[in-house]
């Protein structure tokens, strides 16, 4: 049996009020006044596709340190930060996966996540080990466009394999057609969109039913037996029309999160799937489809094992944990669509020494410190000589992962002096459960949310952008613990 064995998701904490966008742009685009309802997920300045994907993967994988069962990472996205430098490779380092993992970037169409999922399911038939399917998007839009209101940022993750399957794969259908409802040429920031009604009638209306019919036939499942129909689209009611045309019951329609998150693009079908799985019961049938340069659909049946898995946070709690952002200029600035005066302190060169990064990639990307075998003292970054007062031992440190451990704030400040994309810059010293102290930047934090003693957890984020050369530095940051069930793994072997 092949299928999904774990799932996870990530929705950025900021939720941009559509009303504030519509009102700010009303002088120019009054037609969007009626669409100023709800919120859309908005990545913080230090989030990109890679960090979103890492967050979703961690939601899926949980706190366990043994990730040796993961043999593949497929990262689906149309907005990956690097055109060349394996984006899935950065994710693998951040997740401290084995370097024998097969890592791929998959893109090119809105159904790239389903293509990645299909490939992972195929792989599960023959090979040992699980494949982590990740999907993330952070799409640039023009100010005062429909997409700016409709889209949202987010990511989803599925672990695919053949042991402890919680949703068994029953069948798939694919149609590949060069139907260009939108495109984005190499180097362009923003999609070029064709008329929506044409996409609805000639594209989705004709191509999706073929993929769905093929998937249902392969699964040997009649359409009316589908319990959850997942089909993301920003076109109003197109999912309901499609269900009707395919013979799927209207009450099978899954919530497309339009009022809270917006359409996240490539990950959206998997994000909706993650939400469906949170409340699915054994025996239920799920049809998930997505449209883009053709159509793709997959059918799954939920198994008894569904009760044995919970994501670390899950869509439901990500949805509930949002903070409404009513400042539209902040959104524009985070997207580099509004050039703010940075002052001379913003001129600092952020060139990264790539050879240094390579030597320290485990520390910088994986947040792996060194724990002295003699004293248990934890060092970050790891060093050859330990700090132990009076007994500086040589070469006694073993790799020690910090990313999944919680920490407590010792001291902090919030400063307004430097150039920081979202001032003030919060940073401080945190002490990790089980040992180790690091002076770290804090993110997703506002005034009054941190003090000495505040419990923090770690998130993988953009540290600096080298705009001159187009390079991105990543590192881990601390953020207040917001979900009580999360915790630190127990002590033990850590390699």
């Amino acid at each position: 049996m092949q299928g999904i064995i774990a799932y996870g998701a990530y929705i950025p904490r900021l939720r941009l009020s559509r009303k504030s966008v519509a009102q700010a742009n009303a002088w120019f685009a009054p037609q969007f006044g009626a669409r100023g309802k709800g919120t859309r997920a908005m990545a913080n300045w230090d989030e990109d596709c890679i960090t979103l994907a890492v967050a979703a993967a961690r939601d899926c994988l949980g706190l366990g340190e043994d990730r040796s069962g993961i043999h593949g990472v497929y990262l689906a996205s149309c907005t990956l930060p690097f055109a060349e430098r394996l984006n899935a490779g950065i994710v693998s380092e951040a997740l401290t996966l084995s370097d024998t993992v097969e890592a791929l970037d998959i893109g090119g169409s809105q159904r790239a996540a389903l293509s990645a999922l299909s490939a992972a399911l195929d792989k599960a038939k023959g090979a040992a080990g699980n494949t982590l399917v990740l999907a993330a998007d952070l799409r640039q839009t023009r100010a005062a466009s429909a997409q700016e209101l409709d889209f949202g940022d987010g990511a989803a993750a599925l672990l695919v394999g053949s042991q402890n399957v919680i949703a068994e794969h029953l069948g798939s259908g694919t149609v590949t057609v060069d139907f260009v409802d939108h495109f984005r040429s190499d180097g362009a920031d923003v999609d070029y969109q064709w008329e929506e009604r044409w996409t609805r009638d000639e594209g989705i209306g004709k191509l999706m039913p073929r993929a769905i019919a093929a998937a249902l036939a392969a699964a040997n499942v009649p359409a009316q037996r589908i319990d959850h129909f997942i089909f993301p689209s920003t076109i109003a009611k197109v999912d309901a029309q499609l269900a009707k045309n395919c013979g799927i019951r209207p009450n099978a329609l899954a919530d497309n999160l339009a009022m809270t998150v917006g359409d996240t693009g490539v990950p959206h079908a998997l994000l909706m799937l993650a939400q469906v799985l949170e409340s699915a019961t054994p025996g239920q049938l799920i049809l998930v489809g997505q449209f883009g340069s053709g159509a793709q659909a997959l059918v799954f049946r939920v198994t008894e094992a569904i009760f044995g898995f919970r994501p670390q946070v899950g869509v439901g709690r990500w949805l509930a944990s949002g903070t409404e952002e009513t400042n539209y200029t902040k959104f524009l600035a985070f997207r580099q669509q509004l050039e703010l005066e940075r002052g001379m302190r913003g001129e600092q060169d952020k060139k990264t020494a790539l050879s240094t990064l390579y030597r320290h990639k485990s520390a910088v990307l994986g947040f792996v410190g060194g724990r002295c075998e003699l004293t248990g003292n934890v060092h970050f970054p790891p060093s050859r000589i330990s700090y132990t007062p009076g007994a500086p031992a040589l070469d006694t440190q073993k790799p020690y992962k910090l990313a999944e451990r919680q920490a407590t704030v010792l001291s902090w400040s919030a400063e307004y002096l430097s150039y920081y994309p979202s001032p003030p810059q919060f940073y401080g010293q945190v002490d990790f459960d089980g040992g180790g102290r690091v002076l770290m930047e804090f993110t997703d934090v506002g005034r009054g949310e941190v003090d000495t003693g505040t419990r923090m957890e770690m998130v993988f984020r953009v540290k600096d952008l080298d705009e001159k050369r187009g390079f991105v530095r990543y590192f881990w940051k601390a953020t207040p613990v917001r979900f009580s069930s999360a915790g630190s793994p127990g002590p033990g072997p850590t390699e």
Partner: protein
Amino acid sequence: MPSGIKDKVVILGMGCSRFGERWEASPEDLMVEAYGEAMSDAGIGPQQLDAAWFSTHMSDVGTGRGGLPMGIALRLPNIGVTRVENFCAGGSEAVRAAVYAVAAGACDIAIALGVEKLKDTGYAGLPVATVGTLVPQWYPNAVAPANFAQLATAYRHKHGMDAATLKRAIAHVSVKSHANGAKNAKAHLQKAVTEEQVLNAPIIAEPLGLFDCCGVSDGAAAAIVTRPDIARGLGKRELVSFKALQVATSNGWEMHSSDWDGSYFHTARIAAKRAYEEAGIRRPREEVSMLEVHDCFSVTELVTMEDLFLSPEGGAVKDVMDGFFDADGRIPCQIDGGLKCFGHPVGASGIRMLYEMYLQLLGRAGSRQLANPQVGLTHNLGGQPSQNVCSVSIVGNFPS
């Protein structure tokens, strides 16, 4: 314990430029100003100098690198000029090197000069520093005010103190230094301020406001040192001698270990203990007459009073509020205005502190002269609370 430096080396002459936003002065001009005063005070010519130590920190925005800037600016007679750099404690390091060279007998007369030109960057505050190739990949883009502001959160937590009480105490630290700076014609900031002004100033790094931060200044200072017998031979009667020169440098323990509580300077306590031992001081609160500490931020000065064992643990707030460190208090601190108001040209600051102690001990401090000071202490810090270099020096009258 080695025999130490006590009374082996004396100050032959000192000089200090006017500190401040010296738009008209290049680093060379600042050096000439301090050097000229020191040489004339010493009463010697360049040929009598055997060696020089040169302190500057932000060489990229100021003087340039190496010993050359000093050798060329002062047209020194091809003696060795060695640049020392130890963050904001570099000035004290230059003095230490010169003193040790004289004590070793390698030199008869040596000069230490520190200079910093910070006002050619185009913006306020300390320039953005470069920190190698690994640190920027994980360390926060830290700035000095937020590094030192963390002392406040940790100190408050340790002593169960409310934010307003600590904020008021550190405000008093700044009010006192402004009052002192107003009497110093060479100081960068010569204006008294009220507690209300300090408390209501814009926040730079919580909880530090504008008046909790020291001036970022241009300036230079110089010290010429020699053996007591040589100074006597040159006709000097009243002499100021070194009683202790101690430096302690972090080894990463504070950075890595949860055993450090973030509210004090581990190095300062070590350097202070060693310095008191070297100088033979057993009861610092009773024996120290005056001090210049590294008040880069008001909260730094406050916690330093405990690190130097002048205030009891947790007692600095009471001492500060009681005026213990005011100009008319038991141990006047920052009598020249300190970093806060005299200013902080990084590489020169340690020597500037020594300059004030020298003037006070010789009775030359004019309107801010203290009555009969015997023992002066300087505390010069480089880095930040969790990793730093701390220098504690003690000077006093040379026994006649």
